[in-house]
């Protein structure tokens, strides 16, 4: 039993080390806070070549170039927002996986609220219509009795 557990632990350790060694992006920044921001940013920026992958997950050359930009700009002391703005000035808002609010896409952000409002209005009208039927339902029953 002990032997199996030990073997499993060794396998897990090797797998962990190997996963880090073969990761798409082995970048390590000197400061853990910077490293955390680096990981967050590369995960929320799109690889423009593959389009459904983030910079962090993509093995293509352009993604590596853009990761290098993120790293260099973080090391140069630029803020996350400055880096996002820098990226979207070159590649458009499409590079941001988390879209920003802008006049152009305001209708997209507003649409769910408007639809909810329309739904509530329809619901209210239907309920009110049914409620008005209720008294009408009762009266004929009493009148239609055999006596």
């Amino acid at each position, binding site marked *: 039993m002990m032997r199996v557990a030990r073997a499993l632990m060794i396998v897990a350790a090797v797998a962990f080390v190997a996963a880090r060694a073969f990761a798409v992006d082995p970048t390590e920044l000197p400061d853990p806070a910077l490293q955390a921001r680096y990981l967050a940013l590369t995960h929320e920026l799109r690889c*423009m*070549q593959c*389009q459904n992958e983030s910079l962090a997950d993509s093995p293509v*050359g*352009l993604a590596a*170039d*853009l990761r290098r*930009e993120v790293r260099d700009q973080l090391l140069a002391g630029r803020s996350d927002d400055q880096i996002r703005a820098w990226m*979207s*000035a*070159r*590649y*458009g*808002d*499409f590079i941001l996986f988390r879209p920003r609010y802008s006049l152009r896409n305001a209708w997209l952000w507003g649409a769910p609220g408007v639809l909810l409002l329309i739904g509530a209005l329809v619901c209210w009208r239907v309920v009110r219509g049914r409620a008005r039927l209720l008294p009408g339902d009762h009266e004929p029953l009493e009148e239609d009795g055999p006596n």
Partner: protein
Amino acid sequence: MSRFLLPLGIFALLAVVLAIGIRHSPEKGVIASPLLGKPAPAFAVPNLSNPTGEVRSADLRGRWYLFNVWGTWCAGCREEHETLLQVHRAGVVPIIGLDWKDDDAQALDWLKQLGDPYQSVGTDHSGREAIEWGVYGAPETFLVNPQGIVVYKHIGALTPEAWTREILPRVSGRPAGTS
């Protein structure tokens, strides 16, 4: 009868909106450049055929030019090469090349074998210059006006149709179809 009118109206409206969306949706996978209507990035990159010299945007002020991003590793670039040669022969607008993440010797070989349509070619080994232009896949071609503003971007291999329909009318100031 009137109870069907509202859903029918909504359906018709939706159909019209979607039809417009389909008609106007850009080619699949093509992303509009935020550079359009904005100043082209200033650049000064090593000259491919003269490594001590530079290709600089400052030298191009006051005239139209095409900025073509290519590489010998790029299949679409070979595909468009004949069109670039035609554009070069037409002599209407000079083509400035950016040899993106490429080997200089191979690039010089390519130009010797296939013909050289460029006024000058800059090199971008690090890929930094291409990022400035928002390039995400070669070939990409930008049309820059004399004021240094990017007025058109073609993504993918340049075609004779794109040249006559999109680029030539802009450079000559005449709408397409008139001569």
